[in-house]
């Protein structure tokens, strides 16, 4: 009986988040609101909501506010929260999920650090076309697009000395079987949707 009711209604935001997170159950429903995650987070002070607060908001179905939040974008993927969570919630993975959802819903721009998306975008653009990342390219292209000033700083300052030290390529390396990779990524995109 309960099941029939469940299948009748559309999935809640909470259920969407859980479904879009890879691996086994991320245990989001187990959150005790203890704040261990928010307390452990290195960039916690810069987030507009702590992860804990975000989880409460997810449960409350505040989809818009959650996907507009800068929290996921400030996640540095250090996984400290996940190591310490007393309920073994896959916090970092959920942050990734929220980023993807924010992008899908086009809400990431509203979050105060939309640059993150720009960087990721530039980064994977190289990966998709060369099979390898290309620091100089990523950096310059991304900076030119997002903060031109620092791009110049880059090229002249640190970037330059990196180059002098032989720690930066001028041209990207391309993998041999790029077509294979492209085919795979193409197929993956077509299959789309989170697992």
């Amino acid at each position, binding site marked *: 009986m309960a099941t029939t009711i469940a299948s009748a209604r559309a999935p809640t935001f909470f259920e969407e988040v859980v479904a*879009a997170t*890879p*691996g*086994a159950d991320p245990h989001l429903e187990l959150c005790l609101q203890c704040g261990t995650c928010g307390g452990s987070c290195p*960039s916690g002070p810069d987030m507009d909501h702590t992860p804990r607060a975000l989880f409460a908001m997810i449960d409350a179905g505040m989809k818009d506010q959650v996907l507009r939040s800068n929290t996921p*974008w*400030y996640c*540095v*993927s*250090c*996984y*400290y929260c*996940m*190591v*310490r*969570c007393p309920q073994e919630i*896959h916090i970092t*993975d959920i942050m*990734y999920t929220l*980023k*993807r959802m924010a*992008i899908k819903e086009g809400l990431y721009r509203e979050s105060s*650090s939309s*640059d*993150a998306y720009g*960087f*990721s*975008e530039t*980064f*994977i653009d190289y*990966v998709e076309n060369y*099979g*390898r*990342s*290309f*620091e100089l390219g*990523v950096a310059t292209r991304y900076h030119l697009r997002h903060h031109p000033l620092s791009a110049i700083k880059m090229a002249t300052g*640190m970037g330059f000395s*990196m180059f002098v*030290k*032989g*720690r*930066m*390529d001028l041209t990207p390396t391309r*993998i*041999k*079987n790029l077509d*294979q*990779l492209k*085919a*795979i*990524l*193409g*197929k*993956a*995109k077509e*299959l*789309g949707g*989170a*697992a």
Partner: protein
Amino acid sequence: MKYGYYPGCSLERNAIAYHQSAMAVAGPMGIEFNELEDWNCCGATEYISIDLLPAYALISRNLALAAQQDLEGNGNQLVAPCSACFLNLKKTDHYMAESPELSEKVNAALAAGDLHYEPGSVSVRHLLDIVVDDVGFNAIAEKVTNPLYNLRIAPYYGCMIVRPGNIKSFDDQEYPTSLDELMSTLGAEVVDFPLKAHCCGGHMTQISESVALELIRRLLKNASDYDADMIVTVCPMCQLNLDAYQDAVNKKFGTNYNIPILYFTQMIGLAFGISPDDLGFGKEMVDAGPALTKIGAEPSLKPKKKRPSKEALPMPSMGEDG
């Protein structure tokens, strides 16, 4: 000991020193690396933020290749020196095993490139893991010809090497100690570095420099508070952030940190008596030269704890438990 080797993009260039030194010390430690043929980028932390399935497909192409190319009898052990690559590869393998649905979709994508990956068929290891666990401290101690006496080292693991937390790790996920032990095996004086497994800022240097510089500052400050001569890392991203942005930190916070950031493989090489040029020394932005001159004769009296005053209360014993 033979292993498959996945250098990852960084080691081709910005972390070239890591690559060189790793190759230089492999022989003496009895390790043979067979680089994975035509490997591709692991997507770092970027791809997964944008699209799930392609990200997993991208990573698992490497796993599939590793499984396929296991010709030299690597026992399907794939070693990644870069912590981010290591974590991505390990996590993908684990999650594919955990969720058949994910594995199915990823393999559907791989099929487009005539590849297939059976979760669990490749075991992903970090370079530090095989050095401390497979080679072992004793074997390393035997090879040490130029002990790093008098050098105060802050061992810095960064975060990803012992994470994500829901997957078994080769060292403590909160407060690892293998690198500490390795460095003291080399004769160095090891700092009990509180921030040893904290974050270096990762890609924040690009996205939000202010956030990143603060994270980097914490690490540099803590290391200098502990009078460390240098910080030794196991990850190209950590090295890059702490090394290349040290200048920026000093400018922003009016500090004057000058702490060289080196790779653990470089230190092993040094202790093995390998010439610095073959270990990629000189590539670091903060010159390691001055610090290295501190290396000298064995300290006559070991820096042992001075006897506590008679009022002092006993410290808890730290037995091997928990």
